[in-house]
């Protein structure tokens, strides 16, 4: 009977393709939107995870995230360095600025100032140029987004001049780093340069990056720094989470993506439910005949379940394939999607959503079949 059920389903190609399309579209929408949502959220932590050597980020107690910063006096660096258990501590600068390109365009950028002597705070990988070039006067590195946005297509950014706060900056490298949440261009330079590029108030230092001595966990060190200095100290994981939480709490992104995911779910139910009920209605005489002939309800249930399950499986597979291709293609070809990936939890969540869609629509269809009296075939 299972074979008959499959042939009933696949033989009506129009409805079969409609059902598969409905599930595939829902899968694509749910998977793709959840993937973009998660990756965007994780971008709230990009700047923190980009500096792997620092165990603890120290900041003013009112600072909320990497981009919402209240600067500290430079003495904070010495305070942190004086805490027992600190292996090293370096200043870190992060602030917004406006940059003027050679073509005369104006662009908003984030200027990151890394420690002058150790260059701690600089991303590890370079796409072009050498790390040592940052020691030369007026040197800046741009990220991948900046290499596309600040320069006309086809122009090599290396050697180009930019203007920040009436100061000259020369691009001497491109760093390999995932874009931030806002996809704003990031310029990396030495701490001392950064202070000149961004006009500011008396206190300028955004963060102190610290590493613990052997034997001291980052949590213990953070706790100790807070006690001794009165500053706020967060481990790398905690501060990364702060960046994600900030996005969740202060933007409409969760609601917007939630609505789209819900729409994917509802559209799936609508398309699949409607097409499946049409399919069942078209075959109701045949189901009635089967019941009259002597096919009991258990087998009828199994037939409808197989039909719904098959559609769900094929549609889910196709949808997941399309979503993966979309994300992989975006990550490979667009700076905005750089680093995007699909965590394994998302296909699982989508599978559960599709299973719910299939269960609801299958149950509705099955009700119609089970309610059909065998005697109806003689009327």
């Amino acid at each position, binding site marked *: *009977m299972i*074979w008959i059920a499959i042939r009933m389903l696949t033989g009506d190609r129009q409805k079969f393709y409609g059902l598969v399309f409905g599930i595939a579209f829902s899968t694509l929408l749910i998977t793709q939107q959840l993937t973009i949502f998660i990756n965007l959220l994780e971008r709230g932590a990009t700047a923190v995870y980009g500096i792997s050597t620092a165990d603890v980020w120290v900041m003013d107690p009112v600072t909320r995230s990497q981009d919402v910063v209240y600067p500290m006096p430079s003495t904070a660096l010495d305070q942190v360095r004086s805490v027992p258990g600190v292996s090293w501590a370096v200043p870190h600068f992060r602030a917004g600025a406006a940059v003027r390109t050679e073509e005369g365009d104006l662009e908003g950028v984030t200027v990151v100032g890394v420690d002058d002597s150790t260059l701690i705070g600089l991303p590890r990988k370079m796409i072009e140029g050498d790390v040592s070039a940052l020691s030369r006067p007026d040197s800046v590195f741009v990220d991948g987004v900046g290499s596309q946005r600040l320069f006309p297509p086809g122009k090599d950014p290396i050697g180009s001049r930019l203007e920040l706060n009436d100061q000259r900056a020369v691009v001497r490298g491109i760093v390999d780093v995932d874009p931030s949440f806002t996809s704003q261009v990031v310029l990396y330079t030495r701490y001392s340069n950064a202070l000149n590029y961004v006009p500011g108030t008396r206190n300028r230092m955004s963060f102190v990056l610290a590493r613990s001595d052997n034997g001291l966990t980052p949590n213990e060190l953070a706790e100790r720094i807070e006690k001794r200095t009165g500053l706020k100290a967060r481990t790398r994981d905690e501060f990364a989470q702060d960046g994600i939480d900030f996005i969740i709490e202060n933007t409409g992104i969760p609601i917007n993506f939630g609505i789209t995911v819900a729409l994917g779910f509802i559209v799936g139910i609508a398309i699949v439910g409607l097409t499946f009920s049409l399919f069942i209605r078209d075959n109701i*005489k045949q189901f009635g*005949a*089967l019941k009259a002939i*002597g096919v009991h309800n258990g087998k009828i249930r199994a037939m409808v379940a197989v039909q719904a399950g098959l559609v769900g499986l094929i549609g889910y597979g196709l949808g997941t394939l399309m979503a993966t291709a979309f994300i992989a293609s975006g990550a490979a070809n667009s700076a905005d999607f750089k680093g995007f990936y699909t965590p394994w939890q998302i296909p699982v969540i989508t599978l559960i959503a599709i299973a719910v869609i299939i269960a609801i629509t299958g149950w509705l269809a099955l009700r119609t079949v089970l309610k059909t009296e065998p*005697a109806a075939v*003689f009327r």
Partner: protein
Amino acid sequence: MNGVIPLATDAPAIAISDISRDFITGGQPIRVLHNIDLDVQAGELTYLVGESGSGKTTLISIIAGILYPTEGEVNVFGTDIYGLNDRSLVEFRLNTIGFIFQQYNLIPTIDAASNAAVPLIAQGVDRLEATERATELLDRLNMADHARKLPSQLSGGQQQRVAIARALVHEPRLVVCDEPTAALDARSGRRVMDLLRDVGVAEDRSVIIVTHDNRVFDLADRILVMEDGRITHDGTEMPDHQS
């Protein structure tokens, strides 16, 4: 085929006693069958004749085990079919009764042989074996060349023959037919009835047919005429005023 109910060999094919059936219309019960008693013997080709609304479809549905009577008892080859539980009744239908519907109700997306094999497949017979047996039966019905065709590729008469094969493939002892010739021309109609007699009627088997096709009345062993939910005539020919 587990759970097959043994059938009596000496019992009438159909023994109905005091059957009534009510339908609820507009909140009021309407009686459509009135205290019917009827015996049909094995080896008989019986016609159930009457105008629309006379109750013949209701009666045949009750005989076939797909519609519970309001009152009375139905025995098919000695088994009180409405004394069985739901599952046993379904099994009984599958093993004992063959169905031919007016609209054929073939599955449009599987070929003729597979359609004819449905009861065997439902009984749990291997699909290939079932299809082989169905193809053999289709061959007897002069449908061998059409066994691999979809129902949409067959004429009405050919589809009806596939439906007959489906009704007979599992060798049921009772075949119930609802207007099997309604959509056929006179020649095809007579051929279908001949086929039903040849293949469906035997010493231990019986066929009961609902029809009002007067072109085939002469082929019946017995004709029952129904009017207003009652059997008003029982004979080998139609009463003069109705023929």
